[in-house]
């Protein structure tokens, strides 16, 4: 137990460093882009003096290093600053939108795992048979479909032609279905393939033969011995893929006008609104670090051979 706590502390410390470097990197990229948010907002008729005045008001006349540390100092007090383009508190903006993003990614993850684990198991058991080949080809096709295209296709079929699901925005559970499926489908292939290959690997293990030799039936061997061991990397993958999915959500949220963080991030980037971009990247990085730690801890719980050190 002591080892585990020490492990978590060590990883959290590393996580803080990661978050710091990521924010520095994002800040540099934002600075490297030509122009700044004020230039993008003001009309050409506004006088240069007025523009300079507004910039000074936002602190944009300061050297980038000063700007960065000013932002960092505020973060440590829990203040993400004011959005330049929307003129709202970034903390409020993120808190408003985070639940929607988590709802979308959570639903996508559920679909992804609930579908791909049984399919992966099925394909592994029927290795080389028609089922296996069909599933493998299908998932590769899905994997190759860009979400923005898949999303538009779904809207066309289910919202415009069939008129059975809402087109976009958030209006209760039915409006969650299309974006969640769009986000989940391309990722299905990954978990399906991981499950299939892990199950096949474990089926070759000697302890599976031992279980058969003991007189354990087919179904029980498959569930208790094969699946139990094959699920270790698949479960860890669940936690590792969560941040990835949030990244993927940026595109899907924009296609479906989903009121989540991804859409906000998109707008922030387009308007060079660095408090928004910095704030959201900050949140995603923290989620990534935390999910990684949870993934390691879960691996340690599922596999008694792993010791967290």
């Amino acid at each position, binding site marked *: 137990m002591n080892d585990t706590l020490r492990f978590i502390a060590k990883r959290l410390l590393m996580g803080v460093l990661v978050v710091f470097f990521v924010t520095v990197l994002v800040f540099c990229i934002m600075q490297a882009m030509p122009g700044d948010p004020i230039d993008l907002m003001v009309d050409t008729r506004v006088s240069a003096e007025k523009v300079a005045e507004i910039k000074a008001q936002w602190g944009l006349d300061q050297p980038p290093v000063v700007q960065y540390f000013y932002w960092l100092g505020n973060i440590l007090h829990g203040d993400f600053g004011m959005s330049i383009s929307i003129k709202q508190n970034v903390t409020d903006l993120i808190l408003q939108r985070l639940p929607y993003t988590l709802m979308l990614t959570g639903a996508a993850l559920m679909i992804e795992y609930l579908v791909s684990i049984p399919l992966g198991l099925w394909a592994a058991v029927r290795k080389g048979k028609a089922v296996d080949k069909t599933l493998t080809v299908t998932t590769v096709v899905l994997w190759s479909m860009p979400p923005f295209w898949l999303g538009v296709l779904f809207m066309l079929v289910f919202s415009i032609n069939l008129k059975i699901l809402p087109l976009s925005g958030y209006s209760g559970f039915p409006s969650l279905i299309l974006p969640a499926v769009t986000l989940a489908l391309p990722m299905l292939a990954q978990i399906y393939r991981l499950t299939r290959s892990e199950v096949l690997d474990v089926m070759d*293990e*000697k*302890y599976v*033969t*031992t*279980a*058969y*030799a*003991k*007189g*354990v*039936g*087919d179904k029980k061997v498959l569930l208790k*011995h094969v699946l*139990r*061991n094959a699920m*270790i990397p698949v479960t860890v993958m669940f936690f590792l893929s969560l941040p990835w999915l949030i990244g993927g959500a940026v595109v899907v949220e924009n296609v479906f006008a989903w009121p989540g963080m991804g859409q906000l991030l998109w707008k922030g980037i387009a308007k060079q609104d660095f408090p928004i971009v910095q704030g959201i990247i900050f949140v995603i990085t923290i989620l990534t670090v935390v999910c990684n730690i949870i993934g390691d801890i879960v691996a340690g719980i*599922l*596999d*008694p*051979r792993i010791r967290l050190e």
Partner: protein
Amino acid sequence: MEEKVLDVKNLSIDFHTSRGCVKAVDRVSFDVKRGEVFALVGESGCGKSTTAMGIMQLIRSPGIISGGEVVFGGRDLLKLSREEMTGVRGRDIGMIFQNPLDSLNPVYTIGAQMTEGLLVEKMDKKQAWQVARDMLRDVKISDVEQRMKSFPHEISGGMRQRVMIGMMLCRNPKLLIADEPTTALDVTIQAGIIELMNELRRKFNSAVLIITHDFGIVADIADRVGVMYAGNLIETADVMTIFDRPRHPYTRLLMKALPTITKDEGRLETIKGTVPNLAEERPGCNFADRCPYAMQKCREQKPEWKECEPGHFCACFLEEGGTARE
């Protein structure tokens, strides 16, 4: 006539590979009698482990049992359904494997794995735990309470093999198949395991089919021996006869190749040549190419399985002409 626990008749196992059909086990026949230890001996790849897996019907694709009978308890196991065979495994025939390090499931405790087979029989959980605990004592594991809660990676290889033996004996099967049970273990630990197996088979009166390439183990534990070469069983006899007057040239050469401390010879004898490729169909004896006594006939047809003296069987043409003299 002693009761035969296991009677294998003309068992053939083929592997269909991209390079053709490999006859890994070709018409192998032998039997194991009640309370007896029968050793199947041969070099790597001769089909001895495959034979054992065939008896248990644990052959995996691309291997298939292409013929023969495995008579156990009056019925042919090869004719049983999958469910019926599941009922035979563990209850009637137990099996332990070569590598105890990977033979136990890493995510379950020793206790959970020991009791799993017992729980198949709808035994009460508490009672199963009790039986498993007693069995661990029988296989000479100390600190049993603690060990029941240990995970496999927390105990040594020798101890894991003891757990395997205990796990397979706790349902008191009539036959225990031990596939190279000591190969992966240190020499000192090997001796302990063999001693334990000897002791337990007396206590439980199980017949044992042991697969090994080690004649030292054969001498220690076996009552009768079957020698396999390239998928064929070439000679069976009781253990004294095999060591004393082997008939088949391969067995004789094997005996010569054994290192001894009494023979004051500098070099160890070896058998020249290599094992034939079993994917190629050959009309004659599989050993003909390496055999110092090979005749024209040996390359043209397969020698028949003959009883050359009571209880001593051999498949070699030399036996027929009675010319098997050196």
